[in-house]
């Protein structure tokens, strides 16, 4: 009988487990990607408001440990924040605590989501949606004031409608109304 054994129910660490998401643009095999994810100190953070600043992210994510770097996600065209970022820690353990205790809590009144990332590479700071933002904002049907209003496809439909009907339109823009 050793005093070092444990029980599988106590080993459970579901917040730290890999999610189902795999980056389709990753250069390498699935196996490579998963290996990197399991060692990674970098988190992807999603569902941010377009107005959330690096400072806010630093304050929140600093609660689980020292942050090495934050890279804000940008609209590929406009080069403005488009609602995601990467947070890299010096120590894996600090990133794990962020997954356990910061994932699923609020920043700027929004529930944010964190996931393991295989590591930042140049180019990954840009949204991959057709319009320049994130893919999820292309097809979104709901109205989200913190993420540019309606999804891009819906906005196009509005635009077309008003154009055809020759009426002034009130398409919601992503113009920042909050002071920096």
């Amino acid at each position, binding site marked *: 009988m050793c*005093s070092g054994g444990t*029980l599988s*129910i*106590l080993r459970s660490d579901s917040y730290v487990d890999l999610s189902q998401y795999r980056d389709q643009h990753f250069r390498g095999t699935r196996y490579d990607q998963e290996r990197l994810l399991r060692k990674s100190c970098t988190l992807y953070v999603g569902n941010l408001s377009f107005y959330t600043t690096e400072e806010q992210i630093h304050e929140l994510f600093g*609660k689980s440990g020292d942050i090495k770097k934050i890279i804000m996600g940008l609209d590929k065209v406009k080069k403005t924040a488009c609602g995601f970022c990467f947070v890299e820690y010096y120590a894996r353990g600090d990133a794990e605590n962020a997954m356990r205790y*910061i994932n699923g*809590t609020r920043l700027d009144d929004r529930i944010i989501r964190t996931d393991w990332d295989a590591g930042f590479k140049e180019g990954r700071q840009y949204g991959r949606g057709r319009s320049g933002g994130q893919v999820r904002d292309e097809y979104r049907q709901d109205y989200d004031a913190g993420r540019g209003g309606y999804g891009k496809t819906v906005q196009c439909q509005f635009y077309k409608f008003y154009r055809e009907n020759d009426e002034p339109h009130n398409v919601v823009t992503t113009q920042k109304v*909050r*002071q920096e």
Partner: protein
Amino acid sequence: MSRRRHSDDSDDSDGQPHKRRRTSEPSEIEERLESLICRVGEKSNSSLESNLEGLAGVLEADLPNYKSKILRILCTVARLLPEKLTVYTTLVGLLNARNYNFGGEFVEAMIRQLKECLKVNMYNEAVHLVRFLSDLVNCHVIAAPSMVAMFENFVSVTQEEDVPQVRCDWYIFAFLSSLPWVGKELYEKKDAEMDRLLSQTESYLKRRQKIHVPMLQVWTADKPHPQEEYLDCLWSQIQKLKKDRWQERHILRPYLAFDSILCEALQHNLPPFTPPPHTEDSVYPMPRVIFRMFDYTDDPEGPVMPGSHSVERFVIEENLHCIIKSHWKERKTCAAQLLSYPGNNKIPLNYHIVEVIFAELFQLPSPPHIEVMYTTLLIELCKLQPGSLPQVLAQATEMLYMRLDTMNTTCVDRFINWFSHHLSNFQFRWSWEDWSDCLTQDLEKPKPKFVREVLEKCMRLSYHQRIIDIVPASFSVLSPANPVCIYKYGDESNRSLPGYTVALCLTIAIKNKASNDEIFSILKDVPNPNQDDDDDEGFTFNPLKIEVFVQTLLHLAAKSFSHSFSALAKFHEVFKTLAESDEGKLHVLRVVYEVWKNHPQMIAVLVDKMIRTQIVDCAAVANWIFSSELAHDFTRFYIWEILHSTIRKMNKHVLKIHKELEDTKARLARQHKRRDSDDDDRSSDREDGPLEEQIERLQEKVESAQSEQKNLFLVIFQRFIMLLTEHLVRCETGGIDVFTPWYKSCIERLQQIFLQHHQIIQQYMVTFENLLFTAELDHHILAVFQQFCTVQCTSKLFMFSLLCG
């Protein structure tokens, strides 16, 4: 009829007859056994009793093939699931009734496990094992007299000489804390022996030292709830239990339902247990103070909260702490388990949970788990009990606020962090007007200070205007400053400032992507206000050069942290050169402060980056924090966050190099081993060369790092002494009271340094004693250090009492 090929294993679902055996793999069986055992006692459609009976049957049937696995699993749950103690003792009782030999083997295995735990300093888990053994008496597995004999050996540890007090403490704690479960039975069988044990315990408790207590208390005041030393509290609880004739009604005892079966079982005697002797490597648990913030008056409409000296209170708190310890990684499970703690309608469970969580959050020197865990756990609890828990939490917050005047500074820091983070998850909704009383107080007093710091932290999690919007107008005096940068060369009206034109030049150059060399050449023309002669290269300390460069660069990079970090990286060479001397480093920090004094968060990240890129060193940061320029901000939270972060970086650095050294030594050892087993004549000691060189270099690096670390603490202590002495002298000559809010804050910050970094400080104690904490020092300051030393020698703990006049 399935078209599947007919197979031998007719119940196979995958139709592949040759791949599967008739029964599952052994490891699958073990997993299943473990799962069955761990899950008993969880919510179920059947009663606990029938589940236990069923499980006992299954295990009994599996004993012939899986006995050792079952023993291992049961020993492990005894050690790691103490919150389900009585469920498992009942299970063992049922097994023992069915199989006497198994019962005996289990007891032996437990004793082996207990000895092993004590040998490797796993004292918290050892307590669970002792408690389990004692509850086995209730299940007729262990004979009461042999348990009493074990406790007699425990209590006799208090007679040992020259051992740390914390060693005796643990054995007394293990004895006393088992009594809620087994006191009644032991007293019934062996009352004379028990009385003797209790009397010996009492005399030990009377003579043991308690200087550590004030240092571990969350509040310095005794009202409304005294912060009792943990053994004192437990003793009061056991005394009350004894007075109540050992009647204990809170603990769930499933074995009572099986009494007729269990009392037929044969009992085993515990083998004589000698506590392992104290060794150099023994590390016992630190003493604790029991945190209490609620009593029965706080929830007048709900069930009555057990009193502070009731044994029920002890059991509930122990179990809730154990649940957190088991499930800290899984916040939803943890919250659910806490809320499903049995006894829900007889005890005000929400109050107990909130109290236990704050007890951990405010624990000194450190919480058992990372602070942010508690914030998120409380949010999960609020989600599960939206109609009741938020109100209890609000009540708790109010109570903590009311008692800020006597709350330990470190605990106030944690309160600030928790409350601001919590609010940010609930749209910052709070009834600030309820706290308007703080507006009439001196801003340095704990309440207004707390509100200021909370609002500043809230701003960091949102933005300035949001904070202005959420507080009443009357609170504007406590609202944080708009975090904008202050650029002294920004305005035309500052034309006359020395360096103004150079600043303009620099601005244009930097915007045009100038190189470090171009920057150097622009700066060359800046006169040095301090010195008459510059050396040829102009590399001596020139405060004006630093001022112009740092102000301009930081102003240009003010947009975000990333911009500022890029700027630091791009012009690293210039920074290193300008800040080469100690005065240079200090001045860089001063200018950073001047530019960003409205944005403490920016100051903190810039200081962090400058340390990591070696533009400034840790000692420079320490000196800067104690400099007169920062006196105005000296009691602000962010200053201490910066200082502690700096110390932590220094500590991590030393550990890192140490590890590199150890790793390299290990590599050399492996290389030797390979060579020894190789028998190859061609290999020689020459191969050791590079590794040995590396080890020598790393050794030097370690020594140098440790020297830097010692120096950092020297600087910090030195500056504290200077500052405090100044204040004490001023008060004495002026005939005014020493205990201003500033003084209380400053002394507690000094204590915090000792407390937070005690393990490192211990290494350099001799130096500190010889160089700083000498007999000539003012007695107020010296007392702090002396307490520290006295206790350290006797019990390897670093604690000291609060100053008293």
